[in-house]
């Protein structure tokens, strides 16, 4: 049974349903964003954690040249180590009949007769390898899906130069490859790069590694110190060609998921705060208006003996109904969006089952945050009303105090129309209402900048990368570094226009106490294909001696041009040298270092050797070229620029597209809601004034102009602020995305800004038109009778 006061509340709400709904929607947007982001964080984190636990994902990893299996037992002796799993990991070239170009991949070994201790696989379809089987393998899901492979299909593979066919027994997932991409590649290309698993015996035999391992992973005992284990392992493995052990924090697949979680964290705090403050104000504005209209009712209630507390509570309930609606809307919206976005993640992240998991703590938190915002929003207004002595409240409100607006006091009053004066004086009299309308519109403008800025940044990186830096059509890598003579062989392939060799050497580069592991690229000093640019896109000419490193690496090391860097090569003869830092490049891919090819080869001391080449190929003969490549057994991988681009367009660009749509919807809701609310309040509070204007001969359009002028003035203030706000948001997001592995530039284009302005302008105009239509129903006669 509703009390009479509650019944009044219910009817008041029904009368103001448009505004109440507008507030609930804005609030809902903030909550949806928060619930979505928090739930996605929760989904990714919990799914990853469970996946890691159930499939026993290792904690420390190391690649090496070759070590006897007996060494694994010694590593297990290192204090803090729990379980050790040695194995083999090799790069292979594939020959898929469906692909023109050679594909490549990584094959890992599985113990011959027992399931692996660590990094256990998850079988999606098919069956496990039969014990002691030959000619069978398991395929990673990303590659299988991209190439429509099924259990039972066969794949031809070059193992150590020998072509062999393998039957796919099952499609699997691995906690090591949640994000599956060629080592060092910023973008995944699941069509031409895959991960495979075979029995140890067969793989080891093919690569002359039987009885040995070249890859090892391990878990730590509870309390085991990762740093000391890594240090000891590195020491132990140096003579076996260890490439430097690393923990999960540096594991390429783990990093990508963590990066995504970090971006979500930024999103889950920043945006909701702004949305909710705007919503809090809107509640305040709606309630203030209601309270003004109900001054007399409040007075009567007080005259009858209702306490201030009861009255405050009554109006707080009004706010909480809106909050509850907003929470439900936001909850549903957040869950719905979360479901959509989780599906997007399936393109990038491979989990046995990545389902949307609502972060249940997010809901009470959302309700709490909103209720706090609403209470802050309404408390002042309600207290003001409740404090009024009943006798005073029953009298009509005296005419509001006005004064000439600031702009008029500058002396230009002369040129201002009366409509304009009414508008600006009203705005000045209610600075808070104006401020929050401005804040709302600015927010709507600002959030549109973010996804478009992100899209433009990524586009610029790729355009620079693919059009200016890497001007080759495709690149290939060799299984093992080879004599520079192969260059001539490459030159004779059909359709080759130009060919430039490169040498990549895995190394640890250090300065002072800082050091990082990365591949040093040796390229021809006056090369035309893969070029080195500084951060202003000017060509950096590689001097005959010395190292050029990326800005980010220089920053991380704290080194400046002219400093001597310590370079430990982690392969071949493992030389250690001091090399002078001679330049800085503006790479987007974080940690990179370049040397002139001859100078790198001198440093390595292995003679004139290359590990791959970059090509420009005559477009008409591209297929001939690719077919010929397939017949060269020493080719380990091929990267084709066009297919990378196409792949990018289908995955990353598509997800940015979805996020753009979500932000667009939010921006429209906020712009629409804020303008609607503002105009409705103006209309209600000033019905009398507007009716008077109509009575004394103003047309509907002229009266509308009074309301619209206010909104236009507010928009003109809001939009530039919104553009600034959006720039700030974009900076913050880009900063949170930027890590040691990726460095995105801040790209904000005129068309991005123009789009934001246009969307907000259209949404506000439509909303204003909706309210203006209500002017038609303005009751001229009753508005003049007596002031409420």
């Amino acid at each position, binding site marked *: 049974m509703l009390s009479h006061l509650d019944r009044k509340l219910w009817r008041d709400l029904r009368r103001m349903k448009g505004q109440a709904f507008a507030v609930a929607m804005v609030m809902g947007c903030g909550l949806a964003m928060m619930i979505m982001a928090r739930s996605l964080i929760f989904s990714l984190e919990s799914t990853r954690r469970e996946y890691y636990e159930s499939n026993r994902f290792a904690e420390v990893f190391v690649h090496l040249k070759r070590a006897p299996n007996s060494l694994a037992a010694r590593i297990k002796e290192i204090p803090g180590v729990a379980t050790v799993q040695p194995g083999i990991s090799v790069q292979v070239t594939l020959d898929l009949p469906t692909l023109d170009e050679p594909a490549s991949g990584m094959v890992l070994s599985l113990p011959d007769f027992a399931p692996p201790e660590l990094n256990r696989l998850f079988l999606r379809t098919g069956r496990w390898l039969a014990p002691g089987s030959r000619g069978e393998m398991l395929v990673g899901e990303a590659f299988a899906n991209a190439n429509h492979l099924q259990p039972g299909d066969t794949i031809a593979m070059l193992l150590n130069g020998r072509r062999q066919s393998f039957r796919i027994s099952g499609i699997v997932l691995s906690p090591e490859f949640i994000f599956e991409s060629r080592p060092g590649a910023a973008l995944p290309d699941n069509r031409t790069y895959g991960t495979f698993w075979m029995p140890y015996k067969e793989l080891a035999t093919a690569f002359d590694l039987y009885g040995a391992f070249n890859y090892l992973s391990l878990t730590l005992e509870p309390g085991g110190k990762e740093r000391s284990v890594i240090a000891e392992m590195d020491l132990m493995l140096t003579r076996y060609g260890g490439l430097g052990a690393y923990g999960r924090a540096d594991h390429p697949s783990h990093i990508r998921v963590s990066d995504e979680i970090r971006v979500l964290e930024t999103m889950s705090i920043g945006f909701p705060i702004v949305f909710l403050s705007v919503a809090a104000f809107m509640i305040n504005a709606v309630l203030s208006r209601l309270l003004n209209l109900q001054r007399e009712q409040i007075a009567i209630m007080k005259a009858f003996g209702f306490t201030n507390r009861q009255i405050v509570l009554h109006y707080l309930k009004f706010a909480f109904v809106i909050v509850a609606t907003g929470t439900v809307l936001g909850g549903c919206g957040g869950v719905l969006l979360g479901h959509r976005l989780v599906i997007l993640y399936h393109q990038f992240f491979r989990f046995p089952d990545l389902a949307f998991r609502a972060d249940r703590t997010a809901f009470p938190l959302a309700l709490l945050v909103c209720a706090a915002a609403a209470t802050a929003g309404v408390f002042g207004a309600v207290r003001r009303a409740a404090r009024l002595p009943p006798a005073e409240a029953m009298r009509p409100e*005296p*005419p*509001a*105090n*006005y*004064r*000439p607006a600031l702009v008029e006091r500058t002396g230009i009053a002369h040129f201002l*129309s*009366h409509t304009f*004066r*009414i508008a600006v*004086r*009203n705005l000045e*009299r209610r600075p808070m209402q104006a401020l929050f309308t401005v804040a709302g519109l600015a927010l709507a403008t600002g959030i549109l900048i973010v996804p478009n800025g992100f899209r433009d940044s990524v586009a610029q990186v790729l355009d620079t990368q693919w059009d200016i830096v890497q001007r080759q059509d495709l690149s290939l890598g060799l299984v093992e570094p080879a004599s520079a003579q192969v260059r001539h062989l490459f030159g004779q392939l059909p359709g080759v226009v130009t060919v430039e060799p490169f040498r990549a050497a895995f190394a640890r580069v250090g300065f002072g106490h800082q050091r990082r592991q990365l591949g040093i690229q040796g390229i021809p000093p006056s090369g035309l294909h893969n070029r080195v640019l500084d951060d202003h896109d000017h060509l950096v000419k590689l001097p005959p001696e010395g190292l050029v490193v990326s800005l980010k690496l220089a920053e991380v090391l704290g080194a400046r041009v002219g400093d001597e860097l310590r370079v430990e090569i982690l392969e071949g003869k493992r030389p250690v040298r001091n090399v002078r830092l001679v330049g800085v490049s503006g790479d987007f891919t974080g940690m990179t270092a370049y040397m002139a090819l001859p100078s790198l080869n001198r440093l390595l001391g292995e003679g004139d050797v290359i590990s791959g080449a970059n090509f420009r190929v005559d477009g008409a003969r591209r297929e001939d070229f690719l077919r010929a490549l397939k017949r060269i057994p020493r080719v380990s991988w091929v990267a084709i620029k066009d297919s990378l681009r196409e792949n990018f367009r289908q995955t990353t660009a598509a997800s940015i597209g979805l996020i753009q749509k979500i932000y667009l919807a939010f921006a429209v809701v906020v712009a629409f809601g804020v303008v609607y609310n503002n105009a409705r309040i103006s209309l209600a509070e000033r019905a*009398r*004034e507007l009716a*008077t*204007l*109509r*009575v*004394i*001969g*103003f*047309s*509907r359009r*002229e009266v509308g102009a009074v309301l619209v002028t206010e909104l236009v003035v507010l928009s003109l203030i809001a939009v530039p602020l919104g553009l600034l706000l959006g720039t700030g948001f974009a900076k913050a997001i880009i900063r949170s995305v930027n890590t040691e592995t990726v460095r995105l530039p801040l790209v904000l284009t005129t068309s991005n800004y123009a789009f934001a302005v246009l969307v907000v302008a259209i949404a506000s105009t439509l909303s204003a038109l909706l309210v203006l239509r209500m002017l038609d129903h303005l009751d*001229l*006669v009753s508005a*003049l*009778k*007596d*002031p409420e």
Partner: protein
Amino acid sequence: MFRVRGLTKVYGTGAAEVRALSGVDLDLYASELVVLLGPSGSGKTTLLNNLGGLDVPTAGELQYRGQDLTAIDEAALTRYRRDTVGFVFQFYNLIPSLTARENVGLITEIARDPMPAETALEMVNLGGRLDHFPAQLSGGEQQRVAIARAIAKRPEVLLCDEPTGALDVRTGIVVLEAIQRANRELGTLTVIITHNAIMADMADRVIHLSDGRVHHLRVNEHRAPASSLNW
């Protein structure tokens, strides 16, 4: 100027039906000052709203200078109000965000042949309070600003709904003086609604309404100056 025949206005339908006017016959002439008297609910305000184009009658004939006001559309009614009619209301209805001068100036912006706002305010003896906002003016002053606003466009018809209703005697007389002066100097047909019978003495004709009909009509031989009234 006005020809009113059988004017009827019904609000609501069925059980809730209220007949505000039930067949008013009336003629109003240029330059005269008419006082409409009658108790509450007699239909005074409804009649005035119909004359001023704020409301449309349910039935009957309503002509202004031969033009049928019942047949014209919303835009034409707005034009009629803008060009022809000046309104003064009981509760002044000034725009709170505009000064006295600007409230009047608002009209002079849209009218065809307005007088300067200052002149209109002079006529109601407010020449000294041009730049005050409504909140800074007394009730009588606010009502005089409203009169200045109504006469600034040199209207042919001035309609005043209880112009002194919210004012004390002394202030009320100052306001009535202003109305009388506008009627005399501008030759505006002026209709004043009141339930104060004493004000009838300042009129050319007095029309008594009751139950939505003209009860009786009285012609004053001599118009008393507003300053001589007392109640």
